[in-house]
């Protein structure tokens, strides 16, 4: 089998049984890989209504199809399980080198079932798969653990959990090496509940492409495409932090737990000068030609000697805006989250939530044990400590805002989440776009990474108040180059009036990103702008030898999305859950609130665009038939 490793590794920690299942070409063609395999496996294997932290839950790592090829940014691995946060489909995507090694060892996906009796770690070296005792590692933070494991297994890649995962903090993350991780939806807690400390992979087999010469050409093509993107230059220079300043300008920040649209000192905290000040070099994931990761070293001051990869918008906004810390403290927070193994976004959200409650007097010094205030980093980190080690109020906050809010009367207004997952950085009140609609329609709850207008122009912020349109903001050449079927393009983008239909675009964007997560390429804007289904189909065909068209890929992506939607519906997702927190409708941020009815209306449009029932958001039978999911 070309392109694919051809096997799925199935490990049952309860019985110690290790299976290696083959992959049928038909599964490959229909679900591509990555999130596709995950969705299929979870839908088939997880019983309805289980407790995510029970041993019935199944944790899957699906490696993207193009991972292991030199195709630019093909490094991503999707991890999925039933989420302890949303109790729906939990999934998260990470790059770095884990996927490459896992596939190089001969496995397209790794399925982990059951629960070990005592702490273990999984050792995979090509065909050798062993469950080894991890008693000595349990309780160590993720960086120590990696150091120990790397000293034993040279050149291995490691996925592991920190103390947060061990203590079943519901928003714990799975760390991917030192600086990356599967952050959102609390998969670390799932891994912790299985008493699995780490997964050590060393792959020497590699992947055999069907047509190396053709692939070589396609790779070059892909590289040139990405390099030609309008945002490429700034991204190689400054990474994601570019966007931070516009958000501040629009007043679309999650400042002080979404009570303020922006902060007066925001331009000092974020933006390009931060990069220039703290970072002198870039770090890339496998085969990436953007290298948005920055190597940050703090040379003097309180946090002297701090070394982290990452100076990205997500941690910056989560801590600098939501909690109000200064930049260096934010970097420290990033390090702590990586060491403890928690989701940076949710951690920031929860801390912000706590501080707001404290300011409102809903919780007091007695509950916490110390003062909490916006921008007080020591307090924030103390609280983080308590949450990680579930001490005192940490016990409650470790449940995430949704559940924590139930413990305090009047706290629900301050709990900013969709379906139980904290909303990251951008405030829909400040800027309404395809992106913010995506936070609602997202299969994994309040999250910004599964739906984004591929040609979003951050220079503009017109809130057309029927919520159905946003400004396109580009000239014709961009329109022409956009890799999208012409008829669809005409339907979505109205070039004369320079507007984009949000509902339609959401569907396209979600499917496109889903496709990225299936084939394992990154969703950084330069990629989204240029790398469409056409080139991916080309690369997929060259790599695997399975001839597919762009349409096939988009159909597969849509199939996966619908399958996950079915999973969520099966777990009891309802339309009424698909809504923003009350605050967004009631409390104004610089004069703006959201109009609930109009949003309901956009959602209806979106459901229609997807071929779902407008009232129940349930995929119509003909849709399922079209996707081959009716059986």
């Amino acid at each position: 089998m070309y392109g694919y490793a051809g096997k799925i590794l199935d490990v049952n920690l309860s019985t110690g049984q290790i299976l290696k299942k083959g992959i049928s070409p038909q599964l490959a063609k229909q679900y591509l890989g990555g999130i596709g395999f995950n969705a299929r496996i979870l839908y088939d294997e997880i019983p309805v209504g289980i407790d995510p932290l029970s041993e019935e839950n199944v944790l899957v790592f699906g490696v993207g199809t193009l991972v292991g090829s030199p195709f630019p940014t093909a490094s991503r691995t999707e991890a999925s399980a039933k989420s302890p946060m949303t109790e729906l489909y939990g999934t998260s995507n990470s790059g770095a080198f884990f996927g490459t090694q896992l596939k190089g060892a001969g496995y397209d996906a790794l399925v982990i079932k059951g629960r070990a009796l005592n702490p273990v770690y999984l050792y995979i070296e090509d065909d050798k798969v062993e469950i080894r005792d991890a008693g000595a590692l349990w309780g160590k933070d993720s960086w120590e653990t990696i150091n120990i494991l790397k000293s034993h297994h040279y050149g291995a890649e490691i996925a592991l959990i920190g103390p947060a995962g061990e203590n079943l903090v519901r928003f714990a993350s799975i760390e991917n090496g030192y600086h990356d991780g599967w952050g959102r939806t609390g998969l670390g807690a799932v891994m912790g509940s299985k008493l699995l400390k780490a997964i050590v992979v060393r792959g020497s087999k590699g992947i055999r492409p069907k047509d190396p010469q053709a692939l070589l050409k396609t790779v070059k093509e892909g590289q040139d495409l990405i390099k030609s993107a309008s945002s490429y230059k700034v991204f190689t220079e400054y990474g994601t932090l570019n966007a931070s300043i516009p958000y501040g300008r629009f007043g679309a920040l999650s400042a002080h737990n979404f009570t303020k649209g922006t902060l007066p000192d925001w331009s000092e905290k974020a933006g390009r000068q931060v990069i220039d000040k703290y970072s002198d070099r870039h770090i890339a994931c496998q085969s990436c030609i953007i290298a948005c990761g920055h190597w940050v070293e703090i040379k003097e001051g309180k946090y002297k000697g701090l070394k982290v990869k990452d100076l990205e918008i997500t941690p910056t906004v989560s801590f600098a805006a939501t909690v109000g810390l200064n930049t260096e403290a934010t970097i420290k927070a990033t390090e702590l989250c990586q060491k403890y193994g928690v989701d940076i976004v949710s951690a920031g959200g929860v801390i912000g939530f706590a501080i707001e409650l404290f300011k409102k007097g809903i919780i007091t010094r007695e509950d916490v044990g110390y003062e909490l205030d916006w921008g007080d980093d020591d307090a924030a980190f103390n609280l983080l400590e308590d949450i990680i080690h579930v001490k005192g109020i940490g016990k409650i906050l470790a449940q995430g805002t949704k559940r924590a809010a139930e413990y305090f009367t009047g706290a629900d207004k301050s709990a900013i989440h969709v379906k139980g997952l904290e909303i990251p950085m951008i405030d829909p009140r400040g800027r309404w776009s395809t992106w913010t609609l995506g936070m609602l329609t997202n299969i994994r709850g309040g999250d910004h990474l599964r739906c984004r207008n591929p040609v979003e122009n951050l220079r503009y912020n017109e809130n057309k108040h029927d919520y159905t349109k946003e400004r396109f903001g580009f000239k014709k050449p961009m329109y022409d180059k956009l890799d999208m079927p012409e008829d669809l393009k005409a339907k979505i983008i109205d070039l004369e009036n320079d507007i984009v239909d949000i509902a339609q675009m959401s569907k396209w964007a979600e499917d496109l990103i889903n496709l990225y997560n299936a084939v394992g390429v990154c969703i950084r804007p330069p990629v989204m702008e240029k790398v469409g289904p056409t080139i991916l189909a080309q690369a997929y065909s060259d790599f695997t030898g399975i001839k597919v068209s762009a349409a096939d890929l988009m159909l597969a992506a849509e199939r996966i999305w619908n399958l996950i939607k079915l999973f969520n519906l099966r777990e009891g997702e309802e339309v009424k859950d698909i809504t923003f927190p009350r605050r967004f409708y009631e409390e104004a941020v610089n004069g703006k609130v959201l109009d609930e009815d109009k949003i309901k209306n956009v959602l209806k449009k979106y459901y229609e665009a997807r071929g779902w029932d407008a009232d129940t958001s349930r995929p119509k039978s003909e849709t399922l038939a079209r996707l081959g999911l009716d059986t």
Partner: protein
Amino acid sequence: MNNVIFIDYHKCVGCGTCEMICSMVHEGICSSLLSRIRIVRDQVNGYNVPITCALCEKAPCINICPVKAINKDSGTGAITIQDSKCIGCRQCVQACPFGHMNFNFNKGVAFKCDLCEGDPQCVKFCWTNAINYIPVELAIGTKRFEVASRIVEYENA
């Protein structure tokens, strides 16, 4: 004048595209372990250093090979291994001071950078310009220029 592989360690971001390309071109398999050029990643201190053949003029690998399977091309200066002659004794692996020489147990032969007949693919695909294939004089010149510019800065400061 012979060209050499000249690596600027400042620029490498460790994406490993060169590894993937190299192994794909030479072995038809995408695997960093089968790549000639290898990147050393230190994720604690955050540096990436590509290591490839230094094209030694007096190469230990050539000396140690008991069957003269390793030869230096007088034209390109590439040091290449003849698979048909190699007996797989792995002495070259231990002799190479840079850990560049590597061994393929499936084929039973050692493998190393052969400069892709004077058109190194890793260079072609390195987007950071960390890997260059340039004349020796130019390589040294580049370094010289860096030093010079530093001096100038110092003077002006």
